[in-house]
């Protein structure tokens, strides 16, 4: 591979990293918000969220990306392909993250919540100071699992013309007629990204051990 091929590969890798990064950050936050709304069991809203979660979990990422990108002009929206890609990844991962957060809420120790209530804490303080710090650690294995699924599923956004790390290997091999080297490098880069997530997970697990009362 020549210098320009390396340059293209790194550019593709960067596209995968920033699009996935933004989608992960938005998906984790939106998932938490959805979980909170679902816990409030607001009629109609709750049913709508259940419908969204079922649809988003059942739709393949490629189909979702195509749908968003192609249907936007129908609603008079001129959607940038990167925005459409981020939207597809976020809508998909949010649905899974919402379920992870919801189960962390449901499994949270009633005793600890009661101790906080007895100490005069309001629900917001209990959430922010007692529940969230622990839920972040206990949910992290599930969330990181979902993050690595997102990264591995991210080549789907190539379908709307985004040149990500996988797509770029095609382009390079079209010029060099040597498909193997760029694909091997791409594999290594994916492994590095997911490896760093797994490393994060290990740290979280070590901290989680302390929570085992």
């Amino acid at each position, binding site marked *: 591979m020549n210098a320009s091929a390396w340059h293209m590969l790194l550019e593709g890798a960067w596209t995968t990293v920033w699009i996935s990064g933004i989608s992960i950050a938005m998906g984790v936050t939106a998932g938490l918000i959805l979980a909170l709304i679902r816990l409030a069991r607001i009629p109609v809203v709750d049913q709508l969220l259940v419908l969204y979660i079922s649809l988003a979990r059942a739709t393949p990422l490629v189909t979702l990306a195509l749908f968003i990108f192609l249907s936007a002009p129908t609603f008079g929206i001129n959607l940038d392909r990167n925005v459409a890609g981020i939207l597809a990844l976020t809508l998909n991962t949010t649905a899974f993250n919402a379920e992870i957060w919801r189960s962390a809420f449901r499994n949270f120790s009633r005793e600890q919540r009661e101790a906080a209530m*007895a100490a005069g804490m309001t629900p917001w303080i209990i959430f922010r100071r*007692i529940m969230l*710090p*622990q839920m972040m650690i206990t949910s992290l294995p599930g969330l990181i699992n979902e993050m690595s699924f997102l990264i591995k599923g991210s080549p789907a956004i190539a379908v709307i013309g985004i040149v990500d790390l996988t797509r770029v290997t095609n382009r390079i091999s079209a010029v060099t007629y040597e498909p193997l080297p760029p694909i091997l490098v791409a594999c290594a880069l994916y492994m590095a990204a997911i490896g760093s997530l797994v490393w994060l997970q290990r740290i979280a697990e070590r901290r989680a051990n302390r929570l085992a*009362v």
Partner: protein
Amino acid sequence: MFEKNTSEQTASEKTVPDDAARTDRTAVSIRHLSKSFDGVEVLRDVDLEVREGDVVTILGSSGSGKSTLLRCINWLEQPDSGSIHIGGQRIGVNDAGRPMPVRELAQVRARTGMVFQSFNLWPHLNVLHNVTEAPIYVLGKSKAEAEAHARELLEKVGMSAKANAYPSTLSGGQKQRVAIARALAMQPEVMLFDEPTSALDPELVGEVLAVIKDLSAEGYTMIIVTHEMAFSRAVSDKVVFLDKGLIIEQADPETFFTNPSTERVRKFLEREVI
């Protein structure tokens, strides 16, 4: 020094006038309290007055409603009817007779401190921060002020050496002593103890009871649900006996343990080794 640490003391010794904390003001007033779970009545028209500085122990068999009564006092359980006042303020229901907004309810709850059977420490916080959390985020104390007070309280319960330890590294007795310090840190008007020694190994019970006895000597108002008869006799100003959700006997400890007026209490005491 006023001491209530031995079971040999008589009721009259317990009400000696030099007890500065003793006043006739009511700390907790419970009127006509009833509560059912799934159609089963667990509390039936309970009335109870606790004066400031008094130590009241609640005895009774398992399922008699004693823990539920205690948990109603800080509204962890909502009674079906009746009223509870803490320091003259009604809990759970506002002046208009409506359920209290959560913020207001939290403020009334903060006037009580609770110690649970299973300690319920927050495992992500070390011992010191378990004690400072509520004073900082509920009372709005500065970190420095809260920590200084927390260290005093940890000293009092004999846990200052473990200030930086996490709950998972502590024994049950140590956890419970931290939980007592955590409740005291809010400077509550009344301390509620829900079977504080029931989850402890027998050899750890003594250290926790000793701390509670010290608090009683300092004049804290306390309501204690317990199965420890000798402890109840030594520490109480009043013993309350609950049976099937009814208070069937309220008396000073000497009368209660030596000359109970009901057959039910007599039978209960016969089964217990005092």
